[in-house]
């Protein structure tokens, strides 16, 4: 474990360091006489989505609960944050308190959804979280008195008094938050809490027989994941100066988060950081760039198709099942009992 501990920390440091350097290209490229790629904004998105995906990773990668509605918690965080800071509402409690409040409200919402649905197995939980995502979107749309419906709550005051032209500083402020999140999650990973989650993921019944209460562990995972998603939502809203409309927190965002988790290697925080950089690099930098270039070349319609909805999802998920010996002879365990890393049945020694 010690070795793993050290290597993870190193991987995380490298990933965070690389991320910290990216926006400097904004300064370097114009200095070299090239057009700026506006990477600071994209990097800020990387931070926002990395936090979202770290939250999802707790639920899906560590605890093995398939959540397809993580964006709903991002929405809850964004709206909670907006309601608490908007100048037309009487709260205006400031950035930090609102961020913490958003996290708490997110955790509460996670527990609210988690509590009645803990017993559901993989696919059933997937549809419930998917449905919950829809419910949240629709409710935000419908309860106009509080959420302003599709108008969105905006504009929100800029955090740290930063205006939009100081994108780089803004990014570093966000990066600092990400570092704290990574630190805390690493603590969880190597603690009793993390071990409980892993045990529940690997074999719920065995974990139960060890005296772990899977319901409580799952509830905590749900709450922690949702809290992080809510933090991500709050940062998203703050960066945008708006909650945007409820549809901004749709299924696609949940899937984007899922892709981030999977691309980098499910279950690993380093993987999430890398995944966020890869996925958002594609969606926010490469695709628009390619689209621009194609359009410049006079094949606008092609460009249009190229950047048409959801292209990033064409990426096949290079899911790395760590348990790499897919025994062709499945054991007697219910096949859907295992979700994430350990997709193979427990103790799947090849038949002899």
């Amino acid at each position, binding site marked *: 474990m010690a070795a793993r501990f050290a290597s993870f920390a190193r991987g995380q440091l490298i990933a965070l360091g690389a991320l910290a350097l990216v926006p400097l290209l904004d300064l370097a490229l114009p200095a070299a006489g090239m057009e700026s790629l506006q990477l600071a904004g994209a990097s800020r998105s990387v931070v926002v989505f990395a936090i979202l995906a770290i939250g999802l990773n707790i639920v899906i990668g560590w605890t093995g609960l398939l959540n397809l509605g993580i964006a709903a918690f991002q929405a809850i965080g964004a709206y909670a944050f907006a309601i608490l800071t908007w100048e037309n509402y009487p709260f205006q409690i400031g950035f930090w308190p609102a961020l913490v409040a958003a996290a708490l409200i997110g955790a509460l919402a996670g527990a609210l959804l988690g509590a009645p649905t803990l017993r559901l197995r993989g696919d059933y939980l997937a549809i419930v979280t998917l449905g919950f995502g829809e419910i949240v979107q629709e409710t935000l749309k419908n309860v106009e008195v509080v959420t302003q419906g599709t108008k969105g709550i905006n504009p929100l005051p800029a955090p740290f008094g930063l205006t939009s032209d100081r994108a780089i500083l803004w990014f570093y402020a966000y990066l600092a938050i990400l570092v704290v999140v990574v630190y805390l999650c690493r603590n969880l990973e190597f603690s009793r809490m993390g071990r409980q989650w892993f045990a529940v993921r690997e074999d719920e019944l065995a974990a139960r027989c060890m005296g772990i209460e899977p319901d409580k562990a799952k509830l905590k995972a749900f709450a922690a994941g949702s809290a992080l998603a809510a933090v991500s939502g709050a940062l998203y809203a703050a960066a945008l100066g708006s909650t945007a409309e409820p549809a901004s927190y749709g299924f696609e965002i949940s899937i984007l988060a899922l892709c981030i988790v999977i691309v980098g290697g499910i279950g690993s925080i380093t993987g999430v950081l890398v995944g966020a950089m890869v996925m958002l690099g594609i969606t926010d930098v490469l695709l628009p760039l390619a689209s621009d270039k194609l359009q410049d070349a006079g094949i606008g319609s092609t460009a249009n198709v190229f950047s048409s909805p959801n292209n990033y999802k064409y990426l096949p998920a290079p899911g790395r099942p760590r348990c790499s010996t897919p*025994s062709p002879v499945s054991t007697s365990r219910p096949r859907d009992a295992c979700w994430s890393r350990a997709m193979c049945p427990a103790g799947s020694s090849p038949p002899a």
Partner: protein
Amino acid sequence: MSSAQPLLEVKGIVAGYGSVEVLHQVSLEVREGEIVSLIGGNGAGKSTTLMCTSGVVPLRAGEIWFAGKRIAQAGSGVRADLLVPMGLVQVPEGRRIFPRMTVLENLMMGAYTRNDPAGIAKDLEHVYQLFDILKTRSSQLGGTLSGGEQQMLAIGRAIMSRPRLLMMDEPSMGIAPLLVARIFEAVRELNREGLTILLVEQNARAALKLSKRGYVLETGRVTLSDDADKLLVDPRVREAYLGD
């Protein structure tokens, strides 16, 4: 009883899962009318040998012949579903009955590849005669049977495909001694009727007592092969597998 041409011939097969190689050059043969047992510790590769023969696990090297036809070699094999009509049938480890089908439906699944209603009906009678408990439970769901009954069902199901060679994987596992005796008795009975049987067993003593010949498999290699009664008295076998 034994003919010159072996019914099943396994020649130097190599197989494994992922990066793990489980079988290294395993060879064995089963002649018409014999009971041959394959004994060895857990992880020795007994089940894998059967799964290779049934076409479920692909070979990495070597070849397998059945009734004068090559049914598998490295890189290609006859599909599992074609082996059953040829008469090569396995009773898998852990029974693997269909839990949400009735006992009768389970038995009929054994006759999936057959198309002779009269013969099927006759074989059904035979199975019921062999294991009368199955008849009384014929409309019960397979999943509600006890372990021993499920084992009988699995054997009955295999017989329904009218096999030439029946491969049985650990029929005694997790079953009370009394039922184990019943099952072994049935195996003996089937053999007496002319069925060739390849038996994989943990319970080496019981298996060897039934068999004509035996093979000892250790970590993916055949280390001993001889007539069963000789193996029963072989000191190496006695020490390692009979616990004397």
